[in-house]
């Protein structure tokens, strides 16, 4: 395959590697300074878990955007659009619409009735120990899947952008990302993590805005012209602008798309690292404002990724995108190189370096948020409330959270190093499916259904969690296809890559069934407390 652009990109990255490393280094130094500063103000549990609850709605909205816009959505969506046209764009819609579930049903009640974790709300009316254990388990499973995808993604990205191809080099990058995230979270807690996410969000938006502007400029701000050029250059013509190139092949792939769509739209409001962000603001009103800002920022960002993706399709040869990375993950950086003047030009190299550094920043901010969510849940739900039965002091709890961060960091470095060559796209979709199947039903029933019981909560968390994980293990994501994690063995029987279509209704059904079938009476007093608090904010602090 002739890949002049790619080769040139390789040369450019090697030539300008010092520039990329300098930009990335500047981000790391700046965030470490912020982290140390934040760490000096982190004393109580509320500081560590919730950043002292003093962020404004706008700041938190920015941080939520920084937490949510992962490398998967930045590089993945632009890449999917560059390769499959319209079908790539479908992802971003699910990711965005999902925020309405958080806004209308979850953010404010959660802020009003919980303190630090998702488990606070789920266990409120229930028997503490079993429900806290379940909530902690589900939080940690969702976060680890998500974390793994980000870590493995970091390895892939760095190898492509810096031209590091040796296994040792990739492992070193994964270890570096892991170490930085441990430092951010153990020292800076939620306050440090939040600032890292805000800085990243600003950089990501600024970088994307610049490339979007340059692409639109090239096509005279005429979207129709851009679309036409993309369709022609892709070699697929009008079909490139219509649904079906990625998911339209068979009845199964269509069903898979439906399953993915449902998981995306219902998963966001059950993602623990998103939910804990609502605790960083002082009131439910500020939580509402933060979601509104997040919807605006994330929506604008996804609109720009459409231009980025179609721009890449219009400017680059399809073969070059695929040769660089089969999933199209490098389409956005390659488009940046091209729009800056092409391979060999200084403008191109600078833009490529900027976009690469932004991508690193993106990964670091997201992994820090995920690590904080899982270590908070471990320390607050499992250690303080299950193991110590609510008798741990704040200091002991925060110490446990810091150790949990180190442990989770080390585990994810190890798993990330092992997973570096696996197909990781399934992991993010799985995290969304588990969040939608195990967490969302329990959150909604807890807040809005007075007859919900401990058994219902346990059935829906474990039922949703186990069914989602089992279905993925026996899906083509894991075995039996050329794109599977294990290509050489074949034990799949569940045809869909995303389990949501089955596991989400199952999670809701089990929550209802478990409650109806349990002998225990729902705790009327506790539900009164939870419901009144969740809608009015009485006693919220």
């Amino acid at each position, binding site marked *: 395959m002739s890949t002049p652009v790619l080769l040139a990109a390789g040369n450019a990255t090697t030539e300008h590697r010092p520039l990329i490393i300098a930009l990335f280094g500047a981000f790391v130094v700046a965030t470490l300074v912020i982290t140390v500063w934040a760490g000096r103000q982190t*004393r*109580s549990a*509320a500081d560590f878990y919730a950043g002292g609850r003093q962020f404004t709605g706008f700041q938190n909205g920015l941080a939520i955007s920084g937490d949510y816009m992962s490398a998967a959505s930045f590089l993945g969506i632009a890449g999917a659009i560059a390769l499959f046209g*319209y079908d790539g*764009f*479908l992802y971003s*819609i699910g990711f*965005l*619409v999902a*925020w*309405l*579930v958080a*806004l*209308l*049903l979850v953010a404010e009640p959660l802020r009003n009735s919980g303190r630090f974790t998702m488990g*606070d709300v789920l*266990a*409120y009316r229930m028997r*503490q120990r079993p429900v*806290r254990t379940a909530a902690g388990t589900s939080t940690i499973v969702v976060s680890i899947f998500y974390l793994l995808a980000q870590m493995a993604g970091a390895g892939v990205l760095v190898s492509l952008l810096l031209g590091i191809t040796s296994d040792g080099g990739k492992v070193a990058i994964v270890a570096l990302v892991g170490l930085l995230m441990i430092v951010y979270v153990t020292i800076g807690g939620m306050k440090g993590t939040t600032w890292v996410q805000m800085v990243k969000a600003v950089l990501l938006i600024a970088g994307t805005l610049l490339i979007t502007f340059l692409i639109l400029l090239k096509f005279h701000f005429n*979207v*129709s012209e851009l*679309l*036409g050029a993309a369709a022609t250059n892709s070699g697929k013509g*009008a079909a490139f*602008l*219509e*649904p*079906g190139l990625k*998911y*339209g092949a068979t009845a199964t792939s*269509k069903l898979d*798309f*439906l399953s993915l*769509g449902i998981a995306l*739209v219902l998963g966001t409001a059950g993602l623990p690292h998103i939910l804990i962000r609502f605790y960083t603001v002082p009131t439910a009103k500020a939580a*509402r404002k933060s*979601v*509104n800002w997040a*919807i605006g920022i994330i*929506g604008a960002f996804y609109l720009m990724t459409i231009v980025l993706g179609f721009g890449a399709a219009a400017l680059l040869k399809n073969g070059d995108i695929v040769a660089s990375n089969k999933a199209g993950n490098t389409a956005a950086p390659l488009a940046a190189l091209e729009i800056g003047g092409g391979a060999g030009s200084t403008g191109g190299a600078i833009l490529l370096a900027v976009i690469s550094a932004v991508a690193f920043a993106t990964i670091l901010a997201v992994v820090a948020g995920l690590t904080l969510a899982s270590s908070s849940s471990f320390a607050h739900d499992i250690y*303080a*409330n299950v193991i110590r039965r*609510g008798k741990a*002091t*704040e200091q002991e709890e*925060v110490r446990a959270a810091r150790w949990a961060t180190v442990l989770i960091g080390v585990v994810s470095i190890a798993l990330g190093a092992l997973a570096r060559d696996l197909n990781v796209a399934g992991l993010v979709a799985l995290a969304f499916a588990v969040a939608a199947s195990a967490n969302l039903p329990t959150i909604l029933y807890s807040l809005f259904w007075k007859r919900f019981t401990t058994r219902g909560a346990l059935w829906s968390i474990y039922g949703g969690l186990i069914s989602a994980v089992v279905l993925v293990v026996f899906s083509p994501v894991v075995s039996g296809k050329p794109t599977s994690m294990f290509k050489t063995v074949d034990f799949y029987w569940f045809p869909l890559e995303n389990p949501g279509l089955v596991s989400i209704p199952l999670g809701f059904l089990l929550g209802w069934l478990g409650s109806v079938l349990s002998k225990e009476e729902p705790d*009327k*007093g*506790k539900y*009164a*407390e939870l*419901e*009144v608090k969740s*809608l*009015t*904010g*009485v*006693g919220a*602090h």
Partner: protein
Amino acid sequence: MATEAPPPRNGTETAHAPASPTTEQFVEVQEGAEFGELRRTHRSFAFPLTLAFIAWYLLYVLLSNYAGDFMGTKLFGNVNVALVLGLGQFATTFLIAWLYSRHAANRLDPKAEAIKHRMEADA
């Protein structure tokens, strides 16, 4: 300050929380007309709207899946129905967020604050 803190009660209360109303007071408020009105105002707005935007989103996904020809109809230039409906999802998301926030600020916040202030004063 952390070392002075007594163990948190049943894991959901902190040591330095504002004085909290009793469970009986919560039950009384929950069963009262004022809170019933607040609950109705929230649910009658949020629940149907949630069902509506999920249905609208699913309709869009199903059209993309099973109505390719319709979605491919060109409207102007290279812009087709699929793209317009996709951007329509962005537009309705922004619109619903705005509608809800307006509803919350006008209809929910005053009721919620009245109950909150009275309960915290009584506690």
